[in-house]
């Protein structure tokens, strides 16, 4: 199971502004390990799904060029205090992580 996702969300009027931080090595496969001299295998988040009260509000597809410990900020409409926000990711090894928060 991947590391938990840190989520910060605030509601401005009807819109939720969300910032998420996802600990993950995001190896592109290009980096050479200084000790072994070998390329570190690709290990990166491929898909991120953001749901509001169970409905997908953003679907993201990433490549190896997203930085290590990815940061994602997004906004969506129709947010109210008490609503649930869930963010999940899947990486190229099949590992996943899901984190949930309640909007305040």
């Amino acid at each position, binding site marked *: 199971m991947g590391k938990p996702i840190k989520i910060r969300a605030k509601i401005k009027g009807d819109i939720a502004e969300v910032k998420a931080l996802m600990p993950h090595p995001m190896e592109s496969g290009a980096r050479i390990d200084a000790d072994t001299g070998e390329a570190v295998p690709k290990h990166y988040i491929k898909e991120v799904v953001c749901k509001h009260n169970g409905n997908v509000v953003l679907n993201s597809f990433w*490549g190896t060029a997203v930085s*290590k410990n990815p940061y994602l900020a997004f*906004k969506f409409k129709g947010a109210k205090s008490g609503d649930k926000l869930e963010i999940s990711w899947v990486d190229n090894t099949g590992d996943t992580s899901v984190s949930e928060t309640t909007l305040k």
Partner: protein
Amino acid sequence: MKLQRRALLRSLFTAAAVLAAPRFLFAARPDAAFEAENADAAITGAFDGPATESDQIMLKIPDIAENGAVVPVTVSTDMADVEAIAVVVENNPTPLAAMFEMTPQSVADVSVRIKMGESSPVRAVVKAGGKLYSASKEVKVTIGGCGG
């Protein structure tokens, strides 16, 4: 079963299936587009066509990135019916960095941090109302962020 009832059930079933199907642009991640080694091929692979320059896309990215491993980028637009946003780093080994698929609830304003191997134009591609648009900015990178 009477013919009319069968026909009615069939049309109800079809209608339900159409309503239930998620109205996403992409059924799955367009893997080939992410492997493409050329920016235009990546965009065509992801979106099925070339983009036209637009001044309605706000692409916020530093002019000079000290650390190519972490370059913050924000793409936003007030265009109507935004379906998807993509970030393309032209000089990266595989230019397509990220794609964001919008839903009716989305606000077209996303931020992410990307790796840039070297100085490069960075393109934001927006699919809105069935058409493809893009805006580009040249980003100078002091220390490349792809390798060790």
